[in-house]
């Protein structure tokens, strides 16, 4: 659009400006103020960063409030895992006692943390809400073996999920009410 351009007049520099000294003094003033400004460095190991909601850290297995494994060894997570970090060995459970009404459980459950890409697909795909990604993000070790989390380690990291489903209790109640295929 011709006629709309406003040409600014460039004033020649004054003598003081041409020596650069006032400008240098201003710059020095600015940096001196910065000397006492609040520091933005986070002192990492002591000060942990704030973890946002829905953060995807280390994947773990959880137990239900009764202390039983939630995982039924369906192997969906093993199949969906893009880097093939999960390896499940399905196992049989006792028909008596604590695990009487539990369908199935993993005999061994390994997650290789050197392969894991923290995508969270295992958590998304799990029908039993048994695998959860936690907030922990800092893993270290000296050997490759240390990075393969076995079942024991996964439950230790995961703990108990305080949900209210009580799936196996409901199944037991249904069986006792004469409707075993609830």
């Amino acid at each position, binding site marked *: 659009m011709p006629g709309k351009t406003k040409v600014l007049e460039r004033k020649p520099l004054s003598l003081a400006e041409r020596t650069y*000294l006032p400008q*240098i003094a201003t*710059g*020095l003033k*600015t*940096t*001196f103020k*910065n*000397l*006492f*400004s*609040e*520091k*933005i*460095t986070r*002192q990492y190991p002591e000060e942990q960063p704030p973890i946002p909601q829905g953060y995807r850290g280390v994947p773990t297995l959880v137990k239900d409030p009764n202390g039983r494994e939630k995982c039924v060894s369906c192997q969906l997570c093993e199949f969906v895992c893009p880097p093939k970090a999960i390896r499940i060995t399905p196992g049989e459970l006792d028909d008596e006692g604590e695990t009487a009404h539990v369908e199935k459980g993993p005999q061994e459950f390994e997650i290789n943390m050197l392969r894991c890409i923290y995508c969270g697909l295992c958590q998304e795909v799990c029908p039993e809400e048994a695998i959860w990604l936690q907030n922990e993000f800092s893993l270290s070790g000296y050997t490759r073996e240390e990075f393969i989390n076995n079942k024991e380690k996964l439950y230790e990291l995961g703990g108990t999920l305080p949900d209210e489903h009580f799936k196996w209790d409901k199944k037991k109640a249904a069986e006792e009410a004469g409707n075993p295929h609830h």
Partner: protein
Amino acid sequence: MFELTSLWQIILLKTFFAFCMVSVVMGIAAYSVLAERKVSSWIQGRIGPNRTTLPIIGSIPMIGPFLTRLGVFQPVADGLKFLFKEEPVPKHVNKFYYNLAPVVAMVPALTTMAVLPFGQIKDSVSSEYVPLILANVDIGILFLFAISSLGVYGIVLGAWASNNKYSFMGGIRSSAQMISYELSLGLAALPVLMWANPPGADGGMSLINVVESQQTIWNIFWQPLSALLFLVAIFAETNRAPFDMPESETDLVGGFHTEYGAFKFGMFFVAEYAHIVLGSAVFTLLFLGGWNLAPGFAFPWPSGYIGGVASTLVFLAKTCFLIFFFIWVRWTLPRFRYDQVMKLGWSILLPIAIVNLVLNIAIISVWDLYFAS
């Protein structure tokens, strides 16, 4: 103070004093490196080195953690790291000059401190002032300028022996810069020396003389132009930002020390900081009144050692402030382009320095003709 008759005793004592002086200056240089890191961190909103600690001192409650947070032990770690690192020598270098260069860079920095006065003691018997200095030579400042500019030989030698184009360009720039600013440096210091040696006086080039002449008013207040010129020139002479041509890391990789590593690099590094310490000390002596406490209150201390220590501390405080100023400027200003450095040196600084000198000569002659008699 001491009655020393034996020559050996004098030599031994002088050697001891020299050793003390070198230790102190090298210590200040090492802690300037720490100051550089800390001040740069603070200016950039960071914290800086705050983890290095020593086993026993670090575990003292309150003081230990405070010193650790301040990074006081960091220079020890830095120095030891340089000392114990593997020293790779690249295959394409000239071995002899490559090894010689760090030494050549270091020696002038250590030599100049011999003629550097740093305080004075009032003799309790005769009430005479005895300057504290390693070697009280008449040519004082000339010796200082002459030897300190030899430091550039280390840089040029190292740059050339490295057989690397970036090092070479760093060396070339450094030598060109040194020649350009040496002139302004000398011309800016001359008016001070002329005023310190009034006509008819014995005088000399001694720095002690210059400090004594500043007892009533410091030179920076009534020779501000000379002080400014000298300051700019000394920034260039010590290869500090905004004139850090020889190592301009953005365009020359690492500059003259690109091929150096481990302790040889450490020597270049410490030599650079020793030059800064000495530059600050010389500026203090010439323009900030040396060990004089304040304008008009030159030496309020009692005679004896207390006065000696106090005047030395005053001198050290001023020097440390100037070292801080060097660091402060480095983290404020961007680097000049090479041609801008040359233009500033030859077509601005040098003419102003000459005009300043001629003006001072005129004033002194008029003063001498009409008022002094």
